[in-house]
């Protein structure tokens, strides 16, 4: 397994890069996302994406030099942690396109709630944002990720546009 994990049996916590990892199933993941979307309306996408971006950013920062190839680690972590298959090969320091197959969130949402009109993969979008930012030494807020095709909304796979703000690209 690529993701370094420490299990503290006495405290019953699992840490990776100093951050806590917890098991949850797609029923809870989708129920919580639905609660946030219904409760926060237009503010929800930013909150959900930001939550993911900060989480992976914190983990990668905590693991520091232990990770040599951050995009490869991010792809491996995404898979090992059960979120699906992430392909970051189309993303560089200036942005690009990322893809997720078998998205836990998209498939889970479809199975529990049926298809939706708008993309469902806020967590994967934030994960990509955080990983790209750390991989290329960019401020988190300089990277934006938007899902332009989602399995839950009828696409074959989930596709994400990754943009890096012009000021950062110019550096």
């Amino acid at each position: 397994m690529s993701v370094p994990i420490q299990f503290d049996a006495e405290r019953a916590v699992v840490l990776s890069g100093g951050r806590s990892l917890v098991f949850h199933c797609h029923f809870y993941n989708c129920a919580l996302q639905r609660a946030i979307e219904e409760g926060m309306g237009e503010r929800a996408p930013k909150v959900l994406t930001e939550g993911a971006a900060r989480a992976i950013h914190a983990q990668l920062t905590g693991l520091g030099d232990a990770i040599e190839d951050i995009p490869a680690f991010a792809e491996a972590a995404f898979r090992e942690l059960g979120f699906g298959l992430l392909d970051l090969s189309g993303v560089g320091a200036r942005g690009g396109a990322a893809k997720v197959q078998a998205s836990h969130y998209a498939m889970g949402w479809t199975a529990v709630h049926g298809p939706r009109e708008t993309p469902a993969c806020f967590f994967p979008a934030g994960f990509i944002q955080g990983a790209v930012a750390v991989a290329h030494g960019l401020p988190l807020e300089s990277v934006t990720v938007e899902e332009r095709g989602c399995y839950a909304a009828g696409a074959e796979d989930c596709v994400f546009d990754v943009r890096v703000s012009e000021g950062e690209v110019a550096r």
Partner: protein
Amino acid sequence: MSVDERAIVEAVGGLPLVGNEEGLIPAFGLYLTRHYADYYNHVSYAYLHAAHQEGPEAVAKARAALIEAGHVCAFNTFGGIMLSQEWEAVVGPMLSGRDDWVPGIVSVINALGWGRWRLEGLTPGEELRVRVDNSYESTGYLETHGTSKVGSVCFLATGGVAGIMNLIYHGDILARPALTPDYYAELFAGTGRFVAEEVACRAAGAERCEVVARRA
């Protein structure tokens, strides 16, 4: 034979719960993610704090929604675990009767990384009192926001404790029912259901988190 938590945690911890080549973790008849507590805490507390800006009605709605997500988790995750082959093999031989299912599922929970759940008291069919040490919710809240000015914050734990009682004493998970939406409504919305309250929360200044479930 009584429930041996250490053996249960060791057995569950020994299962290779890692994404397969499709990026999925099938286990206990479910699909798991090994997810980030930071993510759950960020989104939950953003919602809670936004509600506090809007007023008491919004707060009540947000708290209920977050606990409801915990109910959904309990019904499907705990229910799925208790219907699984893993449960049958690992926990089954330790169960003498219905009441043992409570410490059984609490033991499995202690392998999920949620913090240490301890059974403080069980009055079968009436009340369950659970103490949670190092709950990921209160730990995360304190780290990011300091002492809570918005009351207790362990919504997943609250929904989870209610769920344990609803599955074991209000419903009958021992009879191996199908976990359908109708069954969920019967357990969590019908007469005789259990509801839980976090009566002490570390994030709100208490020494530890404590959740109590009683009939509504």
